[in-house]
């Protein structure tokens, strides 16, 4: 029974990975449009302000209806202040995520490099969006971010602690990504050599080096 369940889970994981990889191609609709900057600049400004200051708390508020409900259900009486459901805010940011992903034994070097490529593409997309070089909305970038995060979670089957932490810190990572895009837009892009890139990813793993 358990063996069948394990096989089924593994098959579902592979199918999920395939589906995610196929659906992640849709943000190609974000077409470079240098002429459309003026028309959409105002919309971008409102979108820029929304995700950082308002959208994330709004999502957090949506994600924690039980806490508010518990407080209301207390009818002003002494409700239990520290419940297990109220998780502490995770301090995991993009750099910590990268460091832990580098060290995790749940993925091989090539998988990590492929994920790194996807992450760099996403950062580049955010940078272009900030520089008004692409006709993209925050929703599209967010959808692509969610797809990438789901890929990572699907691959972290053997490292449930990291998968749990990433899942908890989804909004923190999103904000960190937006800030990273801003930083990258400000400074010139540096290129990594093969040795450095592989050493960057394979540090902490005992896999075969490229």
């Amino acid at each position, binding site marked *: 029974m358990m*063996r069948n369940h*394990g096989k089924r889970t*593994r098959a579902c994981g592979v199918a999920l990975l395939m589906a995610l*990889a196929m659906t992640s191609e849709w943000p190609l609709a974000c077409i470079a449009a240098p002429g459309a900057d003026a028309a959409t600049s105002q919309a971008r400004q409102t979108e820029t302000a929304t995700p950082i200051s308002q959208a994330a708390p709004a999502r957090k508020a949506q994600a924690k209806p039980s806490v508010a409900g518990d407080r209301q259900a207390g009818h002003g009486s002494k409700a239990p202040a520290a419940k297990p459901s109220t998780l502490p805010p995770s301090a995991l940011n993009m750099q910590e995520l990268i460091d832990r992903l580098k060290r995790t*034994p749940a993925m091989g070097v090539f998988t990590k490099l492929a994920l790194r490529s996807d992450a760099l593409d996403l950062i580049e997309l955010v940078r272009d969006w900030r520089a008004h070089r692409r006709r993209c909305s925050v929703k599209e970038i967010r959808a692509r971010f969610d797809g990438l995060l789901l890929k990572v979670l699907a691959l972290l089957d053997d490292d449930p602690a990291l998968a749990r932490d990433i899942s908890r810190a989804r909004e923190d990572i999103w904000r960190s990504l937006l800030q990273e895009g801003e930083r990258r837009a400000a400074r010139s892009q540096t290129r990594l050599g093969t040795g450095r890139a592989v050493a960057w990813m394979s540090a902490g793993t005992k896999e075969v080096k*490229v």
Partner: protein
Amino acid sequence: MKKGFYAGICALAALLAAPGPAGAVTKAEDIAATIMLRGYACGGRAVSDIHERKDKAGGTVITATCPNGRRYRIEVTPEGRVRVTPLR
């Protein structure tokens, strides 16, 4: 006789179903995961017939065969970017 046969079947099933030890991602599994990550069908968790070589630019080119018979070319560029191309 029958008991031994069933015991063998159970042992084989357990071997196939049991997850590998933590941190034991083989190169074949790694390449298969990379292929699937790029949206291509592989038909299994591990590839076979892996050939690896360096190209002139300093990158790495790998060819591998998936369990479904399809062959793929995995390129790792000097910048660390990964590109997967089906060979046929």
